[in-house]
């Protein structure tokens, strides 16, 4: 059983900081997702846990072992790579068996364990093929089977779905979720796709520029983003962020005026609200602006307009029809509004 603990872990290449002072406790059997844009240090963090990358500073504990100096093979983890990392000269069966073979697992167990793993990822019909004769999704399932066949203490997955097409991504995602439920192993999953993070994670770590921005359950991160970076990264579309001034609970900006907000905050702030929290109004609306564009999504319609210099999107019913240039009036419930410090971008805690 493996808790994974990272203590003040840093990675630097000369002057470049890849990961800065990373502290995190990952509980046993937890599904943890590292989320962030390219270059934020999420893959580096995972590679340090795997042992593929040296640690400049800090400590990594897996279970009760300090693994800083351990070889990857001695850390009792397995990993799934973005580009699969299969052995092209071996059949699917041999690929899955490989970890057992090189770890000198008694040969008598091999067949049974390979078949069990292949059954879990539904590869039984392809065992005699070579990776070149498989589709991307099948290849990634081979990689998954190879990772689970050894029954390690922890799984590491480095953007495993990035090379798959949209439809396959959804089904493989479900498969990974189900595998985690069945196997009950600590799983660390790296992705830049916030939907994957929301759907898979027990907890999400949002990273940017080598720093942890927020750690929390998907709902916490969605409902209470810690700063404007997280707010703009999570959700589809991302949270609308509008710059303005707040005085006595009233936020004002170009084309926008929201009242009923916290009276404890005064001065320049950034107001955030989600597209689905806005509702159309008749008069005396919080936002009153001409439409910039109309997008039909099928299940809803997205309209956007310029408010205080920013493009703001709101989600309305799928039957809503309007022309570009028409003036729209929108209300936002004060409870759905988030306030962020204008200079630091940090969330301003308000009562309620």
């Amino acid at each position, binding site marked *: 059983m493996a808790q994974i603990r990272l203590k003040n872990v840093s990675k630097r290449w000369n002057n470049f900081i890849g990961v800065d002072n990373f502290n995190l406790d990952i509980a046993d059997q937890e599904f943890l997702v590292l989320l962030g844009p390219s270059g934020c240090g999420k893959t580096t963090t995972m590679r340090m846990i795997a042992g*593929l990358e040296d640690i400049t500073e800090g400590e990594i504990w897996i279970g009760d072992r300090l693994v800083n100096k351990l070889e*990857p093979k001695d850390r009792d983890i397995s990993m799934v790579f973005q580009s699969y*990392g299969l*052995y092209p000269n071996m059949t699917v069966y041999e690929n899955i068996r490989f970890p057992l073979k090189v770890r000198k697992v008694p040969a008598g167990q091999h067949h049974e364990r390979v078949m069990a793993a292949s059954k879990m990822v539904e590869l039984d019909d392809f065992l005699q093929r070579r990776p070149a004769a498989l589709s991307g999704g099948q290849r990634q399932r081979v990689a998954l089977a190879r990772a689970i066949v050894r029954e390690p203490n922890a799984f590491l997955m480095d953007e495993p779905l990035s090379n798959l097409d949209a439809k396959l991504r959804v089904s493989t995602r479900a498969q990974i979720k189900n595998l985690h439920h069945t196997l009950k192993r600590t799983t660390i999953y790296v992705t830049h796709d916030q939907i994957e993070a929301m759907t898979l994670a027990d907890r999400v770590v949002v990273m940017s520029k080598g720093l942890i921005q927020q750690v929390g359950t998907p709902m916490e991160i969605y409902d209470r983003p810690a700063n404007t970076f997280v707010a703009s990264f999570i959700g589809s579309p991302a949270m609308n962020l509008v710059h303005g001034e707040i005085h006595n609970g009233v936020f004002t900006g170009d084309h926008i005026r929201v009242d009923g907000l916290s009276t404890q905050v005064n001065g320049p702030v950034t107001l955030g609200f989600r597209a689905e929290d806005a509702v159309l109004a008749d008069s005396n609306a919080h936002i009153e602006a001409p439409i910039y564009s109309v997008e039909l999504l099928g299940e809803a319609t997205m309209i956007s307009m310029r408010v205080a210099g920013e493009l703001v999107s709101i989600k309305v019913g799928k039957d809503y029809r309007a022309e570009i240039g028409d003036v729209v009036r929108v209300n936002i419930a004060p409870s759905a509004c988030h306030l962020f410090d204008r200079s630091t971008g940090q969330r301003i805690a308000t009562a309620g």
Partner: protein
Amino acid sequence: MPHKTFFAFILPSLIAMVLFIALPIVSVVVQSFHVEHGRILVQVESCQPFGGCTTETRVDTAAMAELREEQPMGRFNGFGTYLNRGHLAVDEIGAILANNNGIGDIVTRIYNLPLYKALAFTLVFCFVVTPIAMALGFVIALAVNTVPKMVKGPVIFFSLLPMIITPLIGSLILYWMIQPNGIIGANLRVLFDDPTLSLRQSPLLTWLSLLFYGVWTNAPFSFVVFYAGLQTVPADTLESAMIDGASRWERIRYVVIPHLAPLATFVALVQLMDNFRVFEPIVGFSAEANATSLSWLIFNDLSGDAQLFGSAGATSVITIIGVIILLSPVLVRTWREFNHKVV
């Protein structure tokens, strides 16, 4: 690409190939069916004023010059040259097989026929040097791949030196070193406490030093190709092997070697062809007493006073056939794989 464009594109090199490769080969084949004219002899009676007359047999130079003018290639000999003692020695082998004292005797006597003696060394050179040089080159490539960037350049340069040095010079240098008064030869004498030890006198030691030289000069080529190949080994696969628990050797065995296998076929082809035509070290080592090769036989035919074009041509044709036989397994395999992939 349309066939016409493709044809126009390769036409210049096609012409060059026909002119400089195909036609000379045809000429060599034709030459190999001819042999030098026999000498035309005339009886000349020379009478001296007081001694009476004597008849002498002389070469008729004028008639021979005329004959050479008429038939510059010599007289047609068919397969005669191929079958004579200097080449395939069919009659001699028949005699040896018909009348001998066991296998050892057969081998010794066949080995004394010039072509078979040369063929023996050539084949041994091919099949000993090629695999060892490839293995050595692979090991060097693996080693260079792991040294820090700082020293990589110099290490690569030193590894390539044997290939940069002209073969004749390289073999001469090694030859001088193994002479009794050279650094290696003298040290070997001290080491084995045997003042008469000479690498040159013993056939076995001569062979060994030739093979050593062959490995030394051949390894850099394998090294360069394998080193380039190592840069294309997929990092993901290597890393997943690391995590799966493979040791360094198992990563090489299961990931690197399969990845480099097609390159190894290519290297083996090139090296086998090269080594089948081994020549320079025999000249450089002055080793012809103990080791000869097919190329050396050709050189020997052409360099003496009597230039035996027919004999040299026949040996050349035999060499070409040898190369084809040597490469056929690989070519057949490549051809099959190619067809297999198309299907």
